[in-house]
């Protein structure tokens, strides 16, 4: 599984967490454009990105390049999606996920559990 870290802030932390929950995953940190390009060209399977709104810098490039129907904001200020809701998004075939840095661990852990079931 190839995972690319885009987004705007806290990339190192996001990558660390991804390594923790996707021990077999191939994780690369890129600028948000390059990360979104990777996912568009099929060089990566999943995109994770953080920013203060969970949707702005985190997903802006991904939405612009692969379309909003492939992206999901899983945590924003004042609202973290429930596990059921996250499962729904994963089941819908979303491949790019945005969230706020403070919820990164919780989100990555949850997404990882559902992706493992899927694969």
């Amino acid at each position, binding site marked *: 599984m190839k995972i690319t870290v885009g987004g*705007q*802030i*806290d*990339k*190192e932390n996001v990558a660390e967490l991804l390594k923790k929950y996707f021990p077999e995953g191939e994780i690369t940190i890129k*600028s*948000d*454009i*390059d990360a979104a*390009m990777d996912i568009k060209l099929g060089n990566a399977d999943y995109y994770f990105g953080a*920013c*203060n*709104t*969970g*949707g*702005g*810098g*985190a*997903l*802006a*490039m991904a*939405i*612009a*390049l692969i*379309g*909003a*129907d492939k992206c999901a*904001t899983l945590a*924003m*200020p*004042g*609202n*973290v999606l*429930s596990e059921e809701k996250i499962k729904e998004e994963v089941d819908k075939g979303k491949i790019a996920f*945005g969230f*706020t*840095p*403070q*919820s990164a661990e919780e989100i990555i852990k949850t997404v990882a559990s559902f992706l493992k079931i899927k694969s």
Partner: protein
Amino acid sequence: MERFLISGILSGFASVLANLGVAVFNDGLRPMVPEFLEGRIDRKALAATSFALSFGLVIGFGIPFSIGSAIILIHSILLGTDIIGVSTPRNKTGTVMAGIIGALYGIGLVFGLEKIVELFSKMPIDFLPSLAKVGAPIIVGFSVFPALVVGYQYGAKKGAFTLITALLVRQITTVFGKIPVSQNVNITLNSDGMALLISVIIMLVFAISDKETEKTDSNKMLVGIFSARVARVKKNIIPLSIMGGLIAAACSLRIVAGDPISLKLLTETLKGMAAGDIRNFEAGLVALARSIGFVPLVATTAITTGVYGPAGMTLVFAVGIFIKNPIIAFFVGTLILALEIFLLEFIAKTLDKFPGVKACGDHIRTSMTKVLEISLLVGGMIAANEMAGGNGLGFLFVSGFYLLNKTSKKPLVDMAVGPVATILFGIILNILYVLQLYVPVAVK
């Protein structure tokens, strides 16, 4: 009076631009606008998205930073105008509606913030003087951010080097900063300002000379792929430039600020303190440094979506801070925004050549967030403790609030916890007083 007028015009005009899909402030909403324009989502979905993305930030980020300070954090206005603009229908009537509702929102915001302050000051225990203390640590503490950026990007050693250099410069200018020009005339260099300047320069030198980060042609490719969208931004250059000018003018009148750090620094200058000019310089430098974080983000989202931001690459805030005459600030702001759009492809392609600068931009935003988190948390604790006469109750409440917030399903942004918890504590204190569960040391 002029505060109401400017805020109304700015807010009304921004709502119209959001309604027309010319400019939205929230970077996350920008990519959703072409989805609507090209018919993949409907107006309702766009409005719902904007509400979801922006409302929490208005309440949890914009307003708390604006309460009790004379300057409004721009997020309070421009995230609201995003919602107003895309929630009104996309036709002539809708655009006019957006303008009117937007103007009323801007006026209402200024009025409401003033009323809240009045209400607070009428309470039996007036906690406003203590509330101002929330910003005390950030006013000096923010200077650490360039060192933190270097630390993130090139490791703790180089980060520490930057910090130590800045501290040395600060002490050297404190001791030897008086430059005699002639008899009885000395130029005094400001130590805080110099320390910040040096660390920002070190940060930039590291970023520009970065050979580690991989170079790509991604921006150049984007400009090619999305040429129609670039053209759409350029077509709207005139209204966008006026918007930029309005923001610069509002900032020069000290009605708005672009980020919490420069807001707190500018608030200091309003108190007529001797350090006013220095704080002003620092606020300008912070605004400029922050722009490094936004130039790549705004440029790339504009190219890929055809939608710009009302404040553009946020350089207009620095214009407003440095130029105190609102009319000149308006014209310079207009010019700056026009140049940004005019040079859009050039800026994007240049960023390809300096990948370190783009990475630096990402780190600047991370660092400023971290600095705000810690400074405002400590500031909140100090302020809340002072409110309750230093009996420790404030420490308990604010730290408890911060930690419990982390476990919440609907958490506040960490940055906003300090101000929000402090305001809450002031209100709680008054309730306790009414219930006779709190006896202040000295009642008004």
